[in-house]
């Protein structure tokens, strides 16, 4: 029995030594200076898909009650809590002067041919334990740079339906990872499983005619060839709206959407 008790203690000792070995990983950083794009960059070197001189602009209006801004307590991570002592603002609808922000506006149909992808990287930044911007828009194949600007760890976990799902960790401040998405797909939810309040959406297009409305609900899309199109306005909390648009070369058309709460 003494022999067996000794063997048991020896096993504990050996495992303890094994567990104590190992180490961490130094921060990685890929130098780049991507921009937080909110609109498509129209390339003049379209292959098959043509660009033009028409444009359209307008406003997404909102009528109705606006849910109050919530303040989420970030106690799960003391570093996040220290950055938002009053809690992190979370809104369902951002309305200013009757205009609705964060609406994805894009040409849904009417385009012909294929458009070359932009090589300009698009940034999704994790800053203040929140995503910036909340609405990321990019073309297929266009590099997506994900940065951790926080002095805490994050994981980045998009849950697409069409593109491949991934989950990467960024434990150190300043880390950057580059990803591409090769299939068109709108409103891919992105979350951090460490900080469940973090939420953003990525939309990927096979053409450059898309944008996200500004704080006052305004938007503009340029470089469109003459033609007839269907344009969609998409807000995660409201129904979508589709409008017909006909533009001629050089024309600056007006297109206004109106959502009711």
């Amino acid at each position: 029995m003494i022999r067996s008790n000794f063997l048991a203690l020896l096993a504990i000792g050996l495992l303890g030594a094994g567990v104590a070995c190992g180490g961490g990983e130094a921060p990685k950083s890929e130098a780049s200076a991507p921009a937080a794009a909110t609109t498509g960059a129209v390339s003049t070197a379209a292959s098959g898909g043509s660009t033009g001189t028409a444009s359209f602009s307008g406003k997404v209006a909102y009528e109705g009650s606006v849910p109050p801004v919530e303040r989420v307590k970030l106690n799960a991570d003391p570093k996040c809590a220290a950055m938002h002592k009053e809690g992190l603002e979370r809104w369902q609808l951002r309305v200013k002067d009757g205009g609705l922000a964060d609406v994805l506006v894009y040409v849904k149909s009417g385009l012909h041919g294929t458009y070359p992808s932009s090589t300009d990287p698009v940034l999704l930044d994790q800053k203040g334990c929140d995503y910036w911007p909340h609405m990321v828009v990019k073309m297929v194949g266009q590099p997506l740079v994900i940065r951790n600007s926080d002095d805490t760890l994050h994981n980045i976990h998009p849950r697409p339906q069409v593109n491949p799902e991934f989950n990467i960790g960024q434990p150190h401040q300043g880390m950057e990872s580059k990803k591409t998405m090769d299939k068109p797909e709108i409103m891919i939810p992105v979350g951090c499983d460490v900080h469940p309040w973090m939420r953003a959406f990525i939309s990927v297009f096979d053409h450059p005619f898309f944008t996200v409305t500004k704080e006052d609900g305004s938007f503009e899309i340029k470089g469109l060839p003459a033609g007839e199109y269907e344009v969609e306005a998409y807000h995660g909390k409201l129904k979508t709206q589709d409008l017909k648009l006909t533009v001629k070369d050089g024309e600056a058309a007006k297109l206004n959407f109106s959502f009711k709460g």
Partner: protein
Amino acid sequence: MSMQPVAVNPWRHRWSLLTLCATLALIFIGGLVTSTGSGLAVPDWPLSYGMLMPPMVGGVFYEHGHRMAAATVGLLTLVLAIWTTADERRKGVRGLAWAALGAVVAQGLLGGLTVLYLLPPVVSVLHACLAQTFFCLIVALAYSTSREWRTAGVTTDEVGLRGAALLAAVVVYLQLILGAVLRHTGAGLAIPDFPLAFGRLWPAFDRPGVAVHFAHRLGALMVLGAVSWLLGRSWRAADPRFQRPAGLALVLVITQIGLGASTVLSGKAVLPTTAHVAVGAALLGTVSFTALRAFRLLQPPREARAVRLAAALGDPA
């Protein structure tokens, strides 16, 4: 009639009980990982963010905490396997100890796979089921090293307790598999009301989740029936060695049904959902122990008659 006494180090028995308690705690912590949506809060494996000890913030607290608890149970099981090999004469018990070690290693690998492959339901369900199987193995190891196993006499199973206990263990295990499928396919709220289902006794099965969820509710009734039958048999036998665990099992079943209802009505709040997982494991452990005890302490009447006849004829067997 008494059985051949088996010498067992009492400290090994205590160690197996410690492993048993640690495993139940581990199952609760594992339940917390899923209930808090932290399963992918650590995206790499076997390290965590490339570290042995990442900052324990947010979802990392649950996921890495689960890994630490799992490593502790793995360590306890390794020691138990080595210890059992060193001083256990019974080949079957030695095999059981190594089976437990194999199960805990496989469980760790499944946990890693489910992280690396982003929680595929098949792997997550296997991970959940193997956890319960491992728990049963440790129950068996703990009981096989107990004083009762070594010294108790065998009596005749006059009322069918062995069958009732085995049936209860099998039904509870199948119900746990169904529960794991429900949990890891996101069907926990596929039926949003309770006790009715969409306001009806029998819902329309228009989605797979509804079928899985409803089958789990029907399974709960079968578990209630099986455990009640076991308790009834125990009462008939008037044997407190079975009345006590069967009574405890019935209390656990009723608690478990209450927790299941709370899980649905609270919209899968963390505490009732996680407690539902842990109480399910405790129930399986209780009925498994009862079945082991029944098969250890009771003989079927026909076998008992044969033994009595042999004794009457002067055959020592």
